[in-house]
């Protein structure tokens, strides 16, 4: 019998994965540049500092994605009989927890700054014989870095469903919303500029709560898959339609009376256990193997399939 899990990909997914990897590297390069640019102007604005740290945090999902790729290609072995697909979920969880912890810390920092009425200080810089308020440079840099995440966010959002990759999907989602962070930091700096010192802390709080919320979403999604909730779509929107399709196709076999399925998301691919109640007391091996092959042929994500004849269907399975 050939090995069960899937570690190779069909042509369409291979193309999508190559593109996704390019975009991830592009994101790392782009974000490194923006982190460096912001470092020159970060100054005394809490909102700028928070946006800056958020930029650094956005590198974590990229790195988690690239490291996971090295592992999930490996074929199942005796030691890891399900393959190493779960590495992607672990990376997702690490990214989520990092966002949660650091976002929470930043939120506390901005609230305590507001309560203590700390007035943020932004001085001037002396360039080409002119003394210019540093706040203008902050605004200029932030306007400069707005468009990047918009482009790579939308590109990744198109690839994530093709690959059924939740790390990529969550990352794209955050990138698409990144402009709100940038606008908030500009609002904070301009607030300082017109003497509304509290606007900076309020903008910082807005940004850090956004980070916390991203952390909650990511951790939740990663944990739910790691504790084997039934497989859902890439955006966790609804139970994955493949389960219904598998049950439907199995019940269409003449020798099957009823069927049900238990399907979990390993990260990109699913692990499927199908239960069938046969019409008669005898089942032929070739019928089971044909059913198994048919299910495995339904979608590239469902290669790790077992079909189990049973007298009744377990109630927790989907029929």
């Amino acid at each position, binding site marked *: 019998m050939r090995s069960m899990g899937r570690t190779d990909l069909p042509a369409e997914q291979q193309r999508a994965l190559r593109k996704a990897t390019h975009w991830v590297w592009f994101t790392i390069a782009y974000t490194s540049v923006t982190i460096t640019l912001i470092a020159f102007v970060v100054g005394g604005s809490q909102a700028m500092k928070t946006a800056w740290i958020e930029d650094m945090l956005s590198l974590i999902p990229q790195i988690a994605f690239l490291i996971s790729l090295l592992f999930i290609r490996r074929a199942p072995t005796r030691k890891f009989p399900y393959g190493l697909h779960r590495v992607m979920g672990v990376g997702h969880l690490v990214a989520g927890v990092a966002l949660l912890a650091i976002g929470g810390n930043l939120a506390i920092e901005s609230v305590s700054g507001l309560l203590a009425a700390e007035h943020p200080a932004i001085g001037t810089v002396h360039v080409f014989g002119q*003394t210019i308020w540093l706040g203008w440079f902050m605004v200029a840099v932030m306007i400069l870095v707005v468009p990047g995440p918009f482009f790579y966010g939308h590109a990744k959002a198109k690839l994530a469903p093709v690959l059924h990759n939740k790390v990529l999907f969550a990352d794209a989602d955050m990138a698409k919303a990144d402009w709100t962070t940038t606008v908030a930091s500009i609002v904070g700096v301009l607030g300082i500029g017109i003497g509304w010192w509290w606007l900076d802390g309020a903008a910082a709080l807005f940004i850090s709560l956004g980070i916390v919320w991203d952390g909650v979403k990511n951790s939740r999604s990663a944990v739910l898959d790691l504790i084997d909730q039934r497989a859902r779509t890439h955006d966790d929107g609804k139970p994955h339609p493949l389960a219904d399709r598998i049950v439907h196709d199995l019940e269409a076999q003449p020798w099957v009376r009823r069927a049900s399925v238990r399907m979990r998301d390993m990260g990109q691919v699913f692990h499927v256990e199908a239960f069938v109640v046969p019409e008669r007391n005898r089942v032929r091996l070739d019928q089971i193997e044909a059913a198994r092959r048919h299910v495995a042929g339904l979608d590239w994500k469902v290669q790790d399939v077992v079909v189990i004849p049973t007298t009744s269907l377990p109630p927790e399975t989907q029929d």
Partner: protein
Amino acid sequence: MRVGAAVLAAVMAVALTGCGLTVPTDPEGTLDRITGGELRVGASPSAGLVATIGEGADVEVSGPLPALIEGFAAEREARIAWTVGGEEELVDGLEAGDLDLVIGGITDATPWVDRASVTRGYPGLPGADGRSIVLLLPLGENALQSALETFLDGEVK
């Protein structure tokens, strides 16, 4: 929330251009108050930079750094009220709103960054002796800091 942020940004852009606001503006209006009024300066004696004779209301402060501040005050048409003390007392004064400016042998490695606005360092200051000398201001009085740094950029080579 996103729309709110965009609207707020737009409102502020209008406020910036339309209402004759200057950027930066002091939250406590210090620069406006000292212009044509009184500049309350705390001086911490430091060899070569700040010298003091006498105490109380009759104190006389001299040296290259006080001379610069007198120039700044003249530009703003302000009288100077000197207070002489140790750095910590003077920083307390800044925080309490009793002082507008603190000078002394303070460098850009100062530990007071959390309690006062710190200007850029001016190593070219007469008497600085290679140290990168900074001045302390009330936290977040950014218009005052801009005005002072602009003045110092013009005076200190």
